[in-house]
């Protein structure tokens, strides 16, 4: 299970906003797919997937947190996906 974070981009180290997910929860994604848009210092930036896997969204559009905060996961099997979802 790999974490999806809102990464630090440039110098800004304050809070950032998950503007919107661009790929629905439960989708198989490939490295380089644009996963979500986040806002950092009034700039919207599209973030690509660093890894491949099934996307599990753990935070919703509009979520605000510090750079580096986990907002989802990339898992390898449906069983893993179901397991994380069941915990919620």
């Amino acid at each position: 299970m790999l974490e999806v974070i809102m990464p630090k981009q440039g110098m800004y180290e304050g809070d950032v906003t998950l503007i919107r997910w661009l790929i629905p929860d439960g989708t198989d994604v490939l490295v380089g797919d644009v996963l979500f848009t986040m806002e950092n210092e009034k700039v919207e930036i599209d973030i690509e997937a660093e890894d491949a896997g099934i996307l599990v969204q753990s935070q919703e559009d509009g979520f605000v947190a510090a750079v580096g905060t986990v907002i989802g996961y990339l898992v390898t099997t449906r069983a893993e996906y179901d397991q994380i979802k069941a915990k919620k």
Partner: protein
Amino acid sequence: MISIKTLEQSFREMLRIRLFEERVRREFGKGDMPGFVHVYVGAEAIAVAVCGQLEKTDMITSTHRGHGHCLAKGVEVAPMVAELYGRESGLCHGRGGSMHIADFSKGVLGANAIVGGGIGLAVGAALAAQTLKDGRIAVTFFGDGASNQGVLHESMNLASIWKLPVVFVCENNGWAESTPASYSISVSDIATRAAGYSMPGVVVDATDYGAMHIAAEQAISRARVGDGPTFIEAKFPRQVGHYVGDGEAYRNRDERKNARDSDVISKTRLVLESQGVDVISIVSETENQIIKELDSAFDAARQGKWPSTDELEKYVYSS
């Protein structure tokens, strides 16, 4: 033509730099590495071809995008990573960070956040080597943006009239941050400007490792035997943003994709495969080795001691 053995060795070194930079980019996202980072992805052939053919005692000056030069010149991974995190165990005791890494023991006179800042330093180092007759040479790396700085004119002129043992390596990725070279540079090949200083100017495709290696070999040998400076313009397309996190709103997404299609590591891999080299084993060996080294370097850096505020003024001047 370069030998397959040399190509294989250079491929390993380029891959090592690529894996280092990809890891830096990923770890930077976590938010605990201070400042900015600029990664060397796509330019690996230049540092490897040049630094790989230098002696340990030869000197280089680097840029804001300096990790590749440092690694290729033999700087160790763990103290480099500690420096990125600003820790006391870093190469510059945490005072420098990514853009000011220096390791005099390896001939790395310093990365430099000032655009063109390393050019005059390398010419000075070459003057020292010539005066001391110690056989060393100096290389300065700089970007296409720095080629428009006044210091390059002064430096090339002095290097030429004094026949200094220096190599000017212009890494032209087509963009000075967000300004395209096609807009800001008066010539299509910067190397043509070398004629104004009576020195050879060579344009090289830096996505072709073999061509880059030969150009570097000739320039280094010319400097070594006392024939004076050479200007190399190493052209390659920029695969990534100017800094990690650069959204690149100013450029077309297709351009970035095309840049990735002419990646030097992928191209070198194909050449090696066509010669029957077992590239899969080389890749897995290199990955295993560097990933282990990086895991321990990042863990150690994160747990490392911060410099003490009581020593804020220490190391401000070197002696």
